[in-house]
């Protein structure tokens, strides 16, 4: 009778050890999977954020391009609406300063646009300022 009992206890102990071992392995595996899952979620989130940033930035560029084209059309519309040749012939004293101001305004706006580009890197320069 005692031998049977000892045998049963031995089997129980062995199976306990087996399940405890399996449990440890499965826990370690579970932790590894959880870590991988976490990393993948972080990677997916990062990609989604990048995609959102790029999409929004591209939309901004499209809108800006439309605005620029409209601004250009408005400016050039002046020449369509007025016969500059006739005006200049009739009133040169009026047209001359307006043309000079128009040219200056265009040059100033081009300089301003380029200044915005230059300022992106806090004003670092490869070449000295032109005289």
């Amino acid at each position, binding site marked *: 009778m005692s031998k049977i009992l000892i045998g049963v206890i031995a089997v129980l102990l062995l199976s306990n050890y087996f399940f405890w071992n399996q449990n440890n392995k499965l826990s370690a595996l579970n932790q590894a999977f959880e870590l991988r899952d976490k990393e993948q979620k972080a990677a997916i989130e*990062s990609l989604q*954020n*990048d995609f959102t*940033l*790029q999409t929004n*930035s*591209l939309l*901004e*560029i499209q809108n*800006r*391009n439309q605005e*620029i*084209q409209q601004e*250009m059309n408005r*400016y*050039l519309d002046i*020449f369509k609406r007025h016969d*500059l*040749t006739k005006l*200049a*012939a009739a009133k*040169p*004293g009026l*047209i*001359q300063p307006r*043309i*000079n101001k*128009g*040219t*200056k305004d*265009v*040059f100033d*706006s*081009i*300089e301003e*646009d*380029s*200044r*915005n*580009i*230059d*300022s*992106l*890197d806090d004003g*670092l*320069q*490869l*070449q000295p*300022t*032109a005289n």
Partner: protein
Amino acid sequence: MQPIMPREINLKELQWLTVTPDNWEEQLARIEEQEGELVFLAMTIPDYEVMAYNMQEIKRYIVELKDVVVYYRKVTTSEETE
């Protein structure tokens, strides 16, 4: 790491003279007094309008290219900081 942006554009001022049959002598005299000799380049009004259109095209291109540069800087800077 981002490249250094190009130096800003620095344009010089110029002056147009409007010459008509009524004021050409006065304008020529002004040129001669200003430059010391009577030599100049001439442009018709239609050609001036073409030049104005060309300047607007250049401005448009600069602004659109600037936006593309800003886009790439924004996208690559956010990727670098991750």
